[in-house]
């Protein structure tokens, strides 16, 4: 990303987030190397690409051009010389650190090294590279092709220039960058905790059932009540976010709910197990 014209990026990890980010970037005109060592995940992303890109681009000629801009690779060695790397592998600190260590050795000195982590410290990841000032968080929301918000995370070591370049990239995707400091949960995952926790605590206290809690909050203008929303997200996924923010901050007000822990233990995870706060037909 030398100035405004740079266009070669690499996305590492072809899961939901990585494939989605690669799709957005290709649609916006970037050349993308999508790096995925696991063949099944790579093939799945390859198969889904026309469909997901098709939701962003209607013109057939533009669609096939965008499709050609994505190249699939099985290792970082096949994606050298990129201006921007976005790591989007599972939330495993050791795995991510290994990637940043390698990028610190192999990427060009000017390359921006980004992570899509939502729960790990970007500052910790930056310590794994030889170029910590180039490390920045670029946190997309699920699904990346739809959600307009991207949190640009400034770690303790991140240079102002890296923050600017990351925000510029996000804008070129047609999305809105919000610059946040590297703290647990950043803005959205932290500030949203009470929406779920207050609902869970009301049910625990026995003052209302899930349906009433949802009705009251939907009546205030929330599109989806917290219980319906947890059922959609998955109670396990939602609990993991609360846990990670709570464990990193130790704040009593963000303590996970015993009710939610019990529901997760009982596999009442929401829609994906047909049972959460509500029952779903299979």
């Amino acid at each position, binding site marked *: 990303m030398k100035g405004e014209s740079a266009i070669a990026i690499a996305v590492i990890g072809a899961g939901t987030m990585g494939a989605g980010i690669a799709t957005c970037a290709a649609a916006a005109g970037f050349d993308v190397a999508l790096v995925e060592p696991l063949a099944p995940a790579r093939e799945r992303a390859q198969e889904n690409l026309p469909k997901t890109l098709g939701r962003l681009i209607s013109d057939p000629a533009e669609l096939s051009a965008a499709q050609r801009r994505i190249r699939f690779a099985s290792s970082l060695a096949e994606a050298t010389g990129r201006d921007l790397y976005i790591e989007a592998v599972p939330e495993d600190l050791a795995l991510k650190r290994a990637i940043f260590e390698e990028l610190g050795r192999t990427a060009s000195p000017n390359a921006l090294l980004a992570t899509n982590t939502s729960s790990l410290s970007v500052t910790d990841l930056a310590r794994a590279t030889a170029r910590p000032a180039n490390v920045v968080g670029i946190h997309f929301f699920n699904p990346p092709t739809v959600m307009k918000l991207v949190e640009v995370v400034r770690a303790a070591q991140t240079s102002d220039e890296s923050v600017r370049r990351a925000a510029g990239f996000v804008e070129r995707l047609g999305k809105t960058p*919000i610059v946040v400091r590297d703290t647990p949960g950043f*803005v959205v995952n*932290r*500030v949203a*905790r009470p929406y779920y926790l207050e609902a869970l605590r009301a049910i625990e206290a026995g003052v209302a059932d899930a349906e009433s809690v949802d*009705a009251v909050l939907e009546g*205030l203008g929330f599109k989806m009540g917290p219980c319906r929303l947890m059922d959609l997200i998955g109670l396990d996924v939602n609990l993991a976010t609360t846990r990670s923010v709570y464990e990193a901050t130790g704040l009593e007000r963000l303590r996970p709910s015993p009710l939610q822990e019990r529901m997760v233990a009982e596999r009442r995870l929401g829609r994906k197990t047909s049972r959460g706060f509500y029952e779903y037909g299979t």
Partner: protein
Amino acid sequence: MARKGDVAVCGRGALARELVEASQRAGYAAVMVDDVGRFRREIPRAAIVVEAWDSDEYHRREVLDALGHALRRDAILLADALPATARECASWAGQPGRCVGYGVVGRLAEQKVVEIARFSQTIEAAVEKARAFFGKLGVETRVIGDRPGLISGRTIAALANEAAWAVTNGVALPEDVDRAMELGTNYPRGPLAWARAIGIERIVAILENIRRHEGEAYAPAPLLLDLATHGKETMIG
């Protein structure tokens, strides 16, 4: 059936005005009573007395005490159950059975569902009358157990507080926190802008109510306290 004084709304703020207007539109003969000196004359005429005094706790105790004394024997008293619990309001009014809590966080017009709060001593008939009253106003109700801040107030206040803490801790600028929440979740408004529209004092009063009952986890963030005391002029718009 409707006669003068059916409904008496006690208060002087925007919510009291809105409740009077909505009651009149629904066909009630409703009056606004904004002076404790008029309670003895106006309150005994009303079958439904709605308290929306919106003031500090000390003053509200006096208001509810006076309302409780003037309340007709077959009337109900609806008390704002966000800054104090329904049980507390009922005890200040000396009307354990006929004082029902209700929760309107900001504007009534922006709330499709109103919580009706009851506790162990609340009379069922009083709850039904309260529901019928809001029903005529075109508002759905949910009867819930009495808990500080109810569900609506707790959620909005806790979200605003977490947003304020994020600003206080230097995570992002206030406008960026709001923008992130609008785009990253499907909240109707950013928590800080929402709190300003409702009134920072009211958000702080709800948090202080929860804190009084449940402890320091709900202490208002310094930013909210600053805005509540100094920020009124600058935070408009």
